[in-house]
């Protein structure tokens, strides 16, 4: 059940009504049952693996807490969790490549392929489980003893499919708190959900028509078509993922839960380092806390090169986490190189920018960062390496054949609507930098408030693309 479906609208309305009518004592049961129902809409069989992971981590958390040498149960839990992720997400990719390598030396690969569908959300819940065990071993939180609450944390439907990669220490205590019906909080949650839906159906799914068309035949295009597709894909990805996150955060807020903010105007970043503090924040802080910091601590005597070492490993893993395939690995490596460059040249750049007026400096930094982001995202969107290299090598070549820009999935009207919607989103985000837009709206007179609601809802209804489009990050 995806958030932009009618099923979810029905499910969520009913769920909220029952949730607030129910005694606080039993709400976790409703949350758990509702979340399991929500998950089964994606994949019934995935429930078994998910439940197995929850049971294992429930006991491993307790074992880590009780153990005098915490490393043994911690390592065992990591092996189990990473093993599950490898088996269900990467095994077939690994085996395909092994087959190719063995073919070169004339040997048949004896290892059979697994025939199953990758469970939805596996990357998210496995990382949350690893984070939980690490937190318990570092004594940053105690092991959760209430199995029902522990399972509810993992299954919690707003974050089950696409995150945020929520920390147990932030969310689990909230399941014990009583959440009364609060009119202003519910309205605020609904506003966030509506805005998320707007980004998804009006922007992301509209741009997808153009992007999917061009990336479906990358080698047929060159020049400005590829550039537009690359820029559109970058905005599509952002609108899609942040749209999902807004719906998730809004849904959680209605129920009384406060989850980690996942995006903070990432395209306003003036460096790649800043971008990663603003994009998929729950995941990048997870990487920072559990991977980058320990790695850089180990190599702290290497100086800046120790940081580069930690960055490269962290971003390679980040790339692999994002998807199965060489394109994602390259995407991680490209980002790692960009961050390493920024670390190594920080003094030089500071000196250089002192000679340039501040406003110009800001614009140059922003432009370079944005172009880099478009490049790295759009490169990784290609289906394979050969298409990726065609993409790079043909970006600035004139199209060899006459191509009608408005015959690539978007007619002139819808092309304009797509661009206008991006501009509208960026204007809203600009105001977000000055304070909460939702609070701003809530402070306006009723007529203004309702006009804004009507405008957004009518835009969703009239301009939205409705069908079976799923969210991009769900595949991760």
């Amino acid at each position, binding site marked *: 059940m995806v958030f932009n479906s009618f099923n979810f609208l029905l499910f969520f309305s009913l769920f909220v009504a029952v949730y607030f009518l129910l005694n606080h004592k039993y709400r976790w049961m409703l949350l758990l049952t509702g979340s399991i129902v929500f998950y089964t809409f994606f994949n019934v069989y995935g429930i078994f693996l998910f439940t197995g992971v929850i049971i294992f981590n429930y006991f491993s958390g307790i074992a880590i807490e009780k153990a005098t040498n915490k490393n043994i149960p911690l390592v065992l839990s990591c092996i189990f969790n990473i093993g599950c992720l490898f088996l269900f997400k990467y095994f077939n990719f690994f085996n395909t490549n092994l087959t190719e390598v063995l073919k070169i030396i004339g040997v048949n690969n004896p290892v059979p392929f697994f025939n199953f569908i990758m469970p939805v959300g596996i990357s998210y819940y496995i990382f949350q489980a690893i984070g939980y065990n690490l937190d318990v071993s570092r004594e940053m939180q105690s092991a959760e003893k209430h199995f029902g609450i522990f399972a509810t944390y993992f299954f919690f439907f707003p974050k089950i499919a696409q995150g945020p990669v929520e920390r147990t220490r932030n969310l689990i205590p909230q399941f014990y708190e009583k959440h009364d019906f609060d009119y202003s909080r519910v309205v605020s949650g609904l506003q966030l959900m509506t805005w998320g839906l707007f980004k998804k159906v009006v922007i992301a799914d509209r741009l997808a028509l153009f992007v999917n068309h061009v990336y479906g035949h990358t080698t047929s295009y060159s020049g400005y078509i590829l550039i537009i597709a690359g820029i559109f894909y970058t905005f599509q990805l952002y609108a899609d993922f942040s749209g999902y996150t807004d719906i998730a955060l809004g849904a959680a807020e209605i129920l009384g839960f406060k989850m980690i903010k996942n995006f903070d105007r990432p395209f306003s970043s003036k460096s790649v380092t800043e971008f990663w503090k603003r994009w998929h924040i729950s995941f990048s802080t997870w990487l920072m806390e559990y991977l980058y910091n320990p790695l850089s601590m180990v190599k702290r005597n290497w100086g800046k090169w120790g940081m580069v070492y930690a960055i490269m490993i962290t971003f390679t893993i980040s790339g692999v986490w994002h998807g199965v395939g060489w394109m994602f690995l390259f995407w991680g490596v490209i980002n790692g190189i960009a961050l390493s460059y920024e670390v190594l040249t920080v003094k030089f750049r500071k000196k250089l920018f002192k000679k340039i007026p501040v406003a110009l400096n800001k614009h140059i930094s922003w432009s370079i960062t944005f172009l880099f982001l478009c490049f790295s995202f759009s490169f990784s969107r290609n289906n394979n390496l050969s298409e990726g290299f065609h993409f790079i090598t043909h970006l600035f070549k004139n199209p060899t054949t006459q191509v009608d820009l408005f015959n690539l999935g978007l007619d002139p009207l819808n092309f304009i609507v797509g661009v206008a919607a991006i501009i509208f989103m960026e204007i809203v985000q600009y105001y977000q930098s000055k304070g909460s837009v939702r609070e701003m709206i809530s402070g306006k007179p009723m007529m203004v408030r309702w006009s804004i609601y*009507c405008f957004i809802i009518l835009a969703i*209804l009239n301009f939205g*693309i409705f069908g079976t489009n799923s969210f991009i990050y769900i595949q991760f």
Partner: protein
Amino acid sequence: MLKLALKSVLLFFIIFIISVTLKKIIYQPLKLFPYSYAADDIYLKDTWLARHKENFNTVFIGSSHVFRQFETPLFDSLIRFGEQPVKSFNYGIQGLAASELFYLSDHLVKKNPAIKYLMIELTKITFPDHVNLHTTRMFYWYNYQTYLFTLKAIFDSKNTNFPLKGAIATMHTIGLIDKCLNFGFISDINNFYSRNEKVKNKISSMSTYNGFAPRKEIYPKQSDTNGINIRSKASAEQFQKYENNPELLKNYNKEYLIKINEIINDYSKKGIQVIFVIAPRADKDQYDEVIPLLAQIDARNKIEIADSRKYPEFYSLDNSADQTHLNKKGSRIFTTVLANEFNKLVETNSSEKNLSQ
């Protein structure tokens, strides 16, 4: 909570009113689409028919049972009556059922004055096809008349329990609301223009079979004969049930029959003979609804070729493409049987006409 609920309802009504106004004042006067914009197949067939409207005097409209099984060139070669040759067109559309079917047939008749015979597959009104949920195809055909007929016919159905009737009516109501709220209207323009391109590329392929799209393969899984047997048994049992107890035939859907008679009379005024056809391989519920209905229709306006006891060849594995459709070989048999029945019907009608003169 009550305050929020009341405000939500109020907001919904405001948006509803604005949406309806938008449609009336801006969208409709722009005449952005023809009525058949909702699906590739409908638009393709409609465009082809419009280009050759003088050519076709016989049309068969219905679901995939029609477009997979009604072989037009064979049908034309088997019809032996009349001063002018029969030229038939297959207007079968995936998932097409009453009352969307009646909406399309009205347009078809209005736009194609050369039609003399219109065969209509008789189907039950049920849930919209799940693949069409919340797409334009689900709701493009609603207007207040079609919606009203749909609701009446659902609630007058004699073989559907009340909760199910409620669920089906709810889905159709959601469809009507979807339409009133102009769901995805701007993106439909995009779909329509991209479809136009597709149609340009595909349109020449229509000339071979005039709308017929056969499936060549023989159903590959022997183990799945079970599915075919279930349908065969369902057909036999239902026909047997009504034969054993003809009183049951009086238990028909009255609202649906009113619509059928309306169609027969209205089209007859335009010189069109309507023939309702029950096709093979429908499910048990379908037959339970349409057999009593067919019994009420005048003999001059109906053909039944679904009974597995009379037509076992329609339920054999060799003639199957899948559980619900015949393959190319099966479709030839189906078309031959249909042509024979059609011949008999037209001959009887013309001799009755001569006698009365």
